[in-house]
């Protein structure tokens, strides 16, 4: 059995002349929560649809649970849960009818007891029509539908977008509950970095369809950092540290945002240009994400952890 829940190799999708997903190669180990990050329009939804075989790639390939995404067997599909962006559900159905409809796709796995418990917890009666539900309630139904088949791989496209804090927290609780069971894997995309920081083991950052980072959250937290150097003898003409994301020049201070650069490397460079010892500046995950994805004077490059 493959140790990877998801693997994409050079996955590429063009819409017209533009690449929405551009040679995306990433892998999601089994048993982890994997956060797919990127700004709006970065290609997260397209990448997810390609993985699920809902779109056909222009080039490259992808596999879910060891099975080619273009030819997912009913058996493999039955082990995958998918929560769409915006929680689109058939509006004309009642919750009970939706459950019957969904259950047909997961005959052996659907846990009606769990589904009922989740509805009770959300205080939703099965007779309600989907179109009469609020956005938040629709999201709750969509979470219950995704959890009831006890999926081995749960894929969620920006599941907490636009939800209030209580329902957002319920999604996170559901994710933690699922991942506590052996061999489960979750891939989700999100804009809410606080949620990502809570639950993700690994993250990928996608920009303009291409992979910019693929590493554990902790590696990213320690790899992207900011240092301040005092430059009493004048600014160096050029900052040529490999791993430079941004540099900002003050009166007699130079602030550098770096990725994957050791203290030793910074100090060696500082000595070379006559700058004084560096002062680290602490960063939140949000600071790090913004610095990493905003255009700067450093070149764009990929950060790949261990």
């Amino acid at each position, binding site marked *: 059995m493959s140790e990877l829940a998801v693997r994409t190799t050079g996955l590429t999708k063009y819409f017209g002349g533009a690449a929405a997903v551009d040679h995306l190669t990433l892998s999601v180990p089994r048993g982890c929560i994997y956060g797919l990050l990127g700004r709006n329009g970065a290609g997260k939804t397209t990448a997810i649809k390609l993985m699920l075989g809902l779109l056909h790639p222009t080039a490259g390939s992808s596999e879910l649970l060891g099975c080619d995404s273009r030819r997912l067997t009913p058996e493999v599909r039955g082990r995958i849960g998918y929560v769409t962006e915006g929680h689109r559900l058939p509006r004309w159905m009642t919750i009970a009818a939706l459950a019957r409809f969904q259950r047909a796709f997961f005959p052996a796995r659907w846990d009606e007891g769990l589904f009922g418990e989740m509805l009770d917890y959300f205080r939703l009666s099965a007779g309600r029509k989907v179109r009469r539900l609020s956005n938040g309630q629709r999201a709750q139904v969509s979470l219950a539908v995704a959890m009831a088949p006890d999926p081995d791989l749960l894929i969620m496209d920006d599941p907490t977008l636009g939800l209030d804090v209580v329902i957002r927290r319920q999604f996170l*609780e559901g994710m933690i509950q699922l*991942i506590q069971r052996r061999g489960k894997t979750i891939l989700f995309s999100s804009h809410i970095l606080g949620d990502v920081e*809570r639950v993700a083991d690994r993250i990928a950052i996608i920009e303009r369809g291409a992979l910019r980072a693929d590493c554990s959250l902790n590696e990213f937290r320690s790899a992207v950092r900011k240092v301040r150097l005092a430059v009493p003898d004048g600014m160096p003409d050029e900052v040529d540290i490999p791993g430079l994301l941004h540099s900002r020049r003050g009166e007699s201070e130079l602030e550098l945002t770096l990725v994957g650069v050791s203290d030793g490397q910074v100090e060696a460079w500082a000595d070379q240009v006559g700058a004084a010892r560096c002062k680290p500046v*602490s*960063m939140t995950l949000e600071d790090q994400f913004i610095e990493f994805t905003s255009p700067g004077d450093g070149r764009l490059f990929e950060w790949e952890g261990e």
Partner: protein
Amino acid sequence: MALWIEISPGSHEPIYGQIVSQVDRAIAMGELLPGDRLPAVRKLAAELVINPNTVARAYMVLDEQGLVVSKTGSGTFVADPAMADRDAAELNALSERIDGIIARAMNMGLAAREITRLFAARLKAFTGRRQGGQKDE
């Protein structure tokens, strides 16, 4: 034992580091005592709504710092510097049994001083007997 851990995402400190520093502080303040059991990884992860690996990592760091002792199968316990090489799980079990005896003595109406006296007397009798026994051999 009282342990309230609060974590805030979006902080400068990573979440596992927040757990480490709060447990560290609770031990320093005497809120957590040697032999106290930390919540199980899965339980704390569910309570705080964070990835279980983050809790496991925090416990690993605390273990490396010698603040706690992890015993496979029985849990993670606050380390006792004086008994660093003893088995934390067994000490914990022992403490619980002593607590049970104290509760029973108090229910019988014994005062703390009487319990101490009784315990000292039994201990003396026991060690005397054991030494006597050893002499016989």
